[in-house]
């Protein structure tokens, strides 16, 4: 066993960090709010910068413009991006759709879409959840009806992050309503500018327009946009989710927030300085640091297993549960330290740490919910990992 990075890995981390030093505004604290035009521009600029340096899709095979980087490298990349709260990562295109197209897409689809993802030109969004299909995703009802060269798509998707900025959506639709739930689903690619697509903003509890409801009314989608076999979309669609489920973002965000708290507690300028000699504060921060490091190591264990060709489904679920919970514990404790100031929102007069902790705590209420609730993850751990009966 070895718990250090290789020189090559450390080198890369340094290069990425120094790129972000230049790319991010000097007083950047994040997180980005992509509904703001300035933050969206920052997202696009960073995405282009990452693409130019070959980092955006470095995990991809060389033939698609990647560098075949190791899962460990990819985790270092994701960790550093999240640690700096930097936008521009484009996980929908680079981490989810790209690898799925490589495995299930036609030659035409691969040549048409992979290049633009690699160059950071096209923004993708993910159309999975529906108003009546959350954790029970296989019950989804959005219909795609065969109409010669096209599918006619009608239905609703919801909780769609970045739909308001996206050019394209990869979505799961029901193509055989008479088959068993998992058997009648297909994965298709939809141009968001198609007639009949309507994007309705949903503002989250933190006051951020981060996701949307997307209504499809008789939308024409060429059959050439079907990914994989007809009615075999569940398999392709789940491949996407395997790329989605890792805790590393949360672990990195948690570490960044924890370090902010340590600095805050140590700073002479802090208004509520529960001074560093307060043993309750010291002990609690040490406990949180332990939680964060424990969940971080789980994420690296996942990438280590991936690099050995395993599909560490249960371990990935464990890392997501542990890291998302650790992050919320850090944010909760941040609010506790800030006391009366903890509930001042960003933009408020006299706010401490720019009201960031309050906003982040509300925003990341989504952590244990999205990408498979933590309850669903625990089912996966128990059933796939521990072999318990369904």
């Amino acid at each position, binding site marked *: *066993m*070895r*718990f*250090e*990075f290789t020189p090559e890995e450390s080198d890369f981390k340094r290069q990425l960090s120094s790129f972000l030093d230049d790319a991010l505004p000097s007083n950047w604290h994040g997180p980005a709010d992509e509904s703001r035009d300035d933050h969206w521009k920052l997202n696009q600029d960073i995405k282009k910068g990452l693409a130019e340096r070959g980092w955006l899709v470095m995990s991809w095979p060389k033939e698609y413009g990647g560098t075949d980087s190791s899962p*460990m490298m990819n985790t270092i990349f994701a960790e550093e991006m999240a640690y700096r709260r930097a936008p521009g990562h484009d996980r929908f295109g680079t981490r989810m759709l790209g690898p799925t197209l490589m495995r299930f897409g036609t030659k035409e689809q691969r040549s048409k879409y992979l290049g633009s993802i690699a160059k950071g030109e096209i923004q993708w969004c993910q159309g999975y959840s529906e108003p009546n299909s959350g954790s029970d995703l296989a019950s989804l009802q959005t219909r795609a009806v065969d109409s010669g060269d096209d599918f006619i798509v009608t239905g609703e998707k919801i909780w769609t992050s970045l739909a308001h900025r996206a050019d394209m959506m990869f979505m799961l639709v029901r193509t055989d309503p008479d088959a068993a739930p998992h058997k009648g689903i297909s994965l298709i690619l939809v141009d968001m500018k198609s007639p009949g697509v309507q994007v309705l903003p949903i503002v989250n509890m933190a006051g951020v327009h981060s996701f949307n409801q997307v209504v499809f009314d008789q939308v024409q989608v060429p059959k050439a946009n079907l990914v994989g076999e007809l009615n075999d979309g569940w398999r392709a669609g789940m491949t996407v989710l395997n790329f989605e489920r890792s805790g590393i973002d949360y672990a990195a965000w948690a570490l960044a927030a924890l370090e902010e708290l*340590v600095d805050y*507690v*140590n700073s002479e300028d802090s208004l509520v300085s529960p001074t*560093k000699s307060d*043993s309750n*504060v*010291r*002990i609690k*921060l*040490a*406990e949180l*640091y*332990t*939680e964060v*490091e*424990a*969940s971080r*190591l*789980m994420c*690296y*264990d996942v990438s*280590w*297993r991936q690099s*050995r060709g395993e599909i560490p489904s*249960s*371990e990935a679920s*464990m890392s997501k*549960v*542990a890291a998302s919970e650790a992050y919320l514990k850090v944010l909760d404790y941040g609010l506790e330290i800030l006391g009366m100031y903890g509930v001042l929102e960003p933009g408020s007069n006299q706010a401490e740490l720019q009201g960031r902790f309050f906003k982040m705590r509300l925003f990341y209420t989504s952590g244990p919910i999205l990408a498979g609730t933590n*309850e669903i*993850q*625990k*089912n996966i*751990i*128990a*059933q796939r*990992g*521990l*072999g*318990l*009966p*369904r």
Partner: protein
Amino acid sequence: MDFGLTETQELIRTSAREFLGERSTPSVVRAVADGDSDAITSLWKEVVDLGWPSLTISEEHGGAGLSFGDLAVLLEELGASLAPIPIVESTISSWVLERFGPKSLKSDLLPQIATGDILMTPAIVERNASWDPNSAKVVATRSGSRLVITGEKRFVSFSEQATHALTLVRTDDVEPALVVIPIWQSVSVEHTTLKHASGIPVSSLTFYEAEVPEGNIVAIGEGAIKATKELIAAGGVARSAQLAGLGKAVLDVTVKYTANREQFGRPVGSFQAVQHHLANMAIAAKQVNHLAHSAASSFSRDGYSIKAAAQAKIAASDKIATLCWTAHQCHGAVGFTWEHDLHLYTRRALAWKTDYGDSAFHKSKLAHAMGL
């Protein structure tokens, strides 16, 4: 990062698992808990033949020269089997002796520890149960070239089996000193046996003008504090590795039980309420395992990571006891019985939770290392 075992580590795991599976059975663990010290002696003789006390001792001093990270793999197995043998006590004593001791003492004692002729156990804690090295009060009076030691050390593991105690004392000129004191059948050492939850022999040792030559001083002054801190950190990491193994073992028996026990016509392990208990246990066991190995790997002949060592013991102390209580809940009434082995694990977990510094102790250390 590499979470895989090296060839050496794989060998350690396989052979330890096989040996302990046969020799450190629940009936042996129970016999030792009931005071059968012959069971310890015969088990210890066998592991000495396997070379376990010599693993981390340098080749120069007759050991195998393996790393602390390698040792952690063995410790996991010892924890999983609740093996009632003083590997941790012996290894961390020899580790600190080799790191901080004078040359002559090392070349005298280390080869004998490697062959099992000497069994050394740490004696640090006193009446106030504190792991703060600065609170030691046992007095060592200088008398010519000898030290005369008087006072009481508490919570000394395997003191009945040990030949020597690695003891933190305070000299009459108020300097702390870490000293090797022979205790085997010594007339100036009294053993007070404790009824300890760990199920292994734990005693208090009272020294009545026990005399040792100055050459038995491992470290003195600031050096003694530093050496003792490393001893406690190594002990805490070692307990963490044992607790990781223990936690995994408890998880395994609980998965097996809930997958087979049927109620309402189906295995209770098919209920989400039970599955989520088990998922939480699996996460905790894995986290403690990673932190323990990360911390153990940080130990080298030059030092160790203070942060990683503290994190390992914090997580192990907090999470494995909780894991055991959850296992009882999942077992229902049968896990509440004396006859069932589950409480053997729980008792050991509770004992190790406080050994070499509890979670609060290590949180304070970690906070300091974080700049707080």
